[in-house]
């Protein structure tokens, strides 16, 4: 079952509670090297989704396959490929960082012989050298969060699920964690949830926006929809929309206001030149022409508020 070259495959995941549905029909296919940002307002169902993907909460409907192994039917095998940081790092405050990480590694089935090396590696990547012999209860929140991340990656799982990994960190620590996540994605696939938009833009190459338990937007980031660029322009003498869309290279046009348009062009110099040339030749009175990067924030606001207003 399941596609073997995808690390994670979730189909039709739903979680119903007695009087409400927390998550409905969640779909995801994730490959190695992908960092998926799960974005949504508080209470949108992000954590519930991640709990279902990590096997700590059984879904009401749907299936999860990790490397082709069914998480619900063979949880033991599937969970070996998984590292999970819940929204509260699951720490034992009366242990030292080293003791705690060692237990986590053994719990995830790491062999005793491989332990010292794994410990050293993870302490280095999470920058925990200075505190490795300290009690977890004495650490600051930022360090505790990093210990939480360390326990999720110590056994080098193929899939790493992080629920708000940068919560409680200062800007420098956030940067370190982001670098760590990017490094992780070289070998593994990473899912992280957050309600901070810039975070997704900074580290993720895929994004899903969730609102009220449903996926409302899904996109790849970095390479903005390849081969297409957006331009906004204003005309003093607006023509028929069909006249604009007839210009070679124009993929689509939408009227934003009287005389104001948003257009999607083929990403080559020719189509932009053709648009400008036609506007001048036809005397449409071109007032402005500027490139549009639809930012994640715009999409987020649009999608979330669209859903909220009836």
């Amino acid at each position, binding site marked *: 079952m399941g596609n073997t070259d995808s690390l994670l495959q979730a189909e039709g995941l739903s*979680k119903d*509670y007695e009087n409400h549905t927390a998550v409905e029909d969640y779909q995801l296919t994730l490959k190695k090297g992908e960092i998926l940002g799960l974005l949504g307002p508080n209470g949108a169902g992000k954590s*519930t989704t991640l*709990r279902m993907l*990590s*096997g*700590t*909460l*059984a879904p009401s409907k749907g299936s999860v396959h990790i490397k082709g192994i069914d998480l619900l039917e063979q*949880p*033991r*095998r599937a*969970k*070996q490929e*998984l*590292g*999970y940081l*819940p*929204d*509260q790092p*699951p*720490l*034992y*405050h*009366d*242990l030292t960082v080293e003791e705690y990480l060692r*237990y*986590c590694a*053994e*719990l*995830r*089935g790491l062999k005793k012989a491989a332990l010292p090396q794994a410990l050293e590696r993870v302490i280095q990547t999470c920058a925990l050298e200075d505190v490795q012999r300290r009690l977890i209860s004495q650490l600051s929140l930022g360090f505790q969060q990093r210990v939480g991340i360390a*326990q999720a990656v110590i056994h080098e799982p193929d899939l790493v699920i992080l629920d708000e990994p940068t919560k409680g960190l200062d800007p420098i620590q956030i940067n370190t964690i982001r670098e760590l996540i990017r490094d992780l994605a070289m070998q593994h696939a990473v899912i992280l949830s957050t309600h901070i938009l810039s975070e997704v833009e900074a580290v993720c190459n895929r994004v899903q926006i969730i609102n009220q338990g449903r996926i409302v937007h899904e996109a790849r980031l970095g390479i903005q929809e390849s081969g297409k660029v957006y331009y906004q322009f204003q005309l003093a003498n607006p023509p028929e929309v069909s006249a604009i869309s007839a210009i070679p290279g124009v993929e689509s046009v939408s009227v934003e206001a009287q005389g104001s348009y948003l257009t999607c062009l083929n990403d080559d110099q020719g189509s932009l030149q053709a648009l400008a040339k036609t506007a001048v030749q036809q005397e449409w009175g071109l007032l402005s022409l500027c490139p549009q990067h639809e930012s994640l924030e715009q999409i987020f606001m649009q999608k979330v508020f669209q859903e909220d207003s009836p």
Partner: protein
Amino acid sequence: MIRLIAGFEYRRLFLSPLAWTLIAGLQFILALLFLVFLENFITELQPRLALIDDAPGATDTVITPMLIWAGILWLAVIPLLTMRSFSEDRLYQRQALLMSAPVSLTEVVLGKYIGLLLFLATALSPALLTAASLSLGTALDWGKLAAGFMGLFLMLASFSAAGLYLSTLSRQPAMAAVLSYGLLALLFVFYITGKTQGSESVLFIYLSHFGHFLNLSNGLVHSSDVIYYLLFSSGFIILTIQRLDSERRNG
């Protein structure tokens, strides 16, 4: 995996001052009681018993009462040991660690339970040494001593299973402890009601926790007593697993 979790829970109990204080405090009380019973035996009982054929020996008059006291005292502190097992995990939202690890719920519960049993065995060993020290001065009834300690261990082990279950019901360790004391009180009420003159009830005595231990501490190893404790333990262990499973399902 069971071994890993059990070893971890066992070591972690010793990280808190609670465990050390409990062992030291209770051992101190038991040693005092032992001294009192021994003193009583030497000055009061021994001269009289010497005249009787087949009289009770030091095992009956010193060790058995000490064991009964050990039972009462340890029953009273077990809720303090079990209260943290699962409720503290929930308080600090730590269940996710075990739940997302490649271990089954059964392994988690058995691991924690065996960790507690190891602790109990360690905690009771000073009392065993105290009792065995009598053999320096007199001949002990080793069979009776073994039966008594087995009874003590079984009783405490089975009550720990109940404490483990009750700790899954609340996220506040204190609440889990209160629930355990409630159960303990109920079991004692069964025993007292069962023993009440005029309205003795075999059923209540069977249901009560303490009666079975008294049989064993007197050297009577009835399979029914042993089975009672085994059933009691496994019943609560199964309930604990069920409870965690339903939590995983219903979140």
